[in-house]
């Protein structure tokens, strides 16, 4: 069952053509990982999906509804698309618990006490029950990102989009975030932009290599890492291996 379908997305910023016709789909419970060099439009693609950056051309379908349709109330569908940001983007004036519950209260209109309980459950899911009353500034990067994940999960989304969720973290904090993401794999449909090849090879159903605004190659992790079709893919993987070490699991 297809949860998310992206068809022929184009996006330009002025003269700069960032996406030149990207298509992909995501089935229920599937995890797909987007990789590629910096500036090739991976983040832009994710942002086009939930319309934080509206695409110039192309369609996005979420669970059978075209959300790029102008007549659609995008705020309604954004609730169903969890978004995890590279720089967390937590609400600084709210505790971890409130960061998670505010969407439930103010968007879904759930009663305060119930929203609180639901938020606590989500924090528990990411291993942060004991940090519920801390403010973002009092949390480590890894903890902030886990709150970010809990905040997105609380909305009970159909799809989760992760935009380089560990790129801004100290190396020793990356593991805790990847652990949480792994625990979600299979349960929820996820589209992940990351350079963490260990995560990609162990969790992804499919890896999509994006460069210069087009999909260069896609395939299962096994095929992708062991026997890619394109020379460019091999080249990129060898560079990544030099930079980040082998694709060993973290």
């Amino acid at each position: 069952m297809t949860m998310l379908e992206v068809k022929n997305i184009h996006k330009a910023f002025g003269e700069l053509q960032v996406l030149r016709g990207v298509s992909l789909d995501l089935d229920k419970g599937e995890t797909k990982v987007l990789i590629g060099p910096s500036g090739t439009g991976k983040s832009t693609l994710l942002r086009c999906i939930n319309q934080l950056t509206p695409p110039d051309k192309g369609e996005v379908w979420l669970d059978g509804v075209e959300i790029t349709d102008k007549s659609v109330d995008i705020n309604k569908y954004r609730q169903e698309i969890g978004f995890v940001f590279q720089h967390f983007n937590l609400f600084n004036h709210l505790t971890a618990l409130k960061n998670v519950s505010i969407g439930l209260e103010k968007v879904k209109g759930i009663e305060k006490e119930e929203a609180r309980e639901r938020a606590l459950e989500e924090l528990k899911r990411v291993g942060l029950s004991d940090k519920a009353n801390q403010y973002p500034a009092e949390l480590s990067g890894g903890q902030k990102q886990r709150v970010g994940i809990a905040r997105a999960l609380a909305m009970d989304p159909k799809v989760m989009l992760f935009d380089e969720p560990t790129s801004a973290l100290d190396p020793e904090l990356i593991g805790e975030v990847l652990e949480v993401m792994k625990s979600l794999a299979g349960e929820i449909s996820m589209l992940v932009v990351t350079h963490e090849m260990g995560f990609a090879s162990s969790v992804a159903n499919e890896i999509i290599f994006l460069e210069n605004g087009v999909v260069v190659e896609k395939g299962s992790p096994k095929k992708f890492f062991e026997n890619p079709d394109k020379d460019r893919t091999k080249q990129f993987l060898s560079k990544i291996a030099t930079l980040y070490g082998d694709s060993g699991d973290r």
Partner: protein
Amino acid sequence: MLAETLARLYNMLPLLWDGLQTTFLLTLTSLVAATIAGVVMGFLRAYNIFPLSYFVYVYEKVLRGVPLLVIFLILWLVPPDFGFRIDRLHAAFLGLALRSAAYQAQIFRGAINSIPRGQVEAAKSLGMSRTKGIQHIILPQVLRLSIPGWSNEFTIVLKDTSIALAIGVTELMRRGDQLAVLHSDIVLEIFLLVALIYFIIVFTVNKILSFIEEKFRMKGYEVEVER
């Protein structure tokens, strides 16, 4: 001698109190109006909503560049030429509010701009409309961040109500002035008493605002402000 002076000053308190009430009234009403206008103008500027943002820009420049006394005089002297009249008190209220709004727009614009863009996107990604994002994410942080600047603005407005004496509003300063004319042997003492009253109010209100700032502070983001 001292006891006698103090006794005389003490007897002036009811009259000063009478003026002080007007001072309070002017300060509070003009601050409330200016805060509302300042928030709105701050958002218009920060979100660059054309052409309103442009009008606000010009408004700020003009109102911040003109002495308050001139603003009072214009409000007091010009309307009769157009066949209507703004009474002294209302002219003073308007003048204070108009000018303070220009200053407060700056305070709020600065605070709005200091909220990271990513938080707005995070709010959107949860499905919040722009209005809800402003209401639940931006404004609560903007108000917290604006307290130090606003506290300063309160001080300025309170003391600038005294300029209204120039258009004949009987506020605290004018009462002091009238008393000084009647008691010309203790002019300095009278004005010192008036100054003390201003000081006590400013000090008290700033303490209260500090307390509010502390109570609503975002942990880890506090800005230390000397008062």
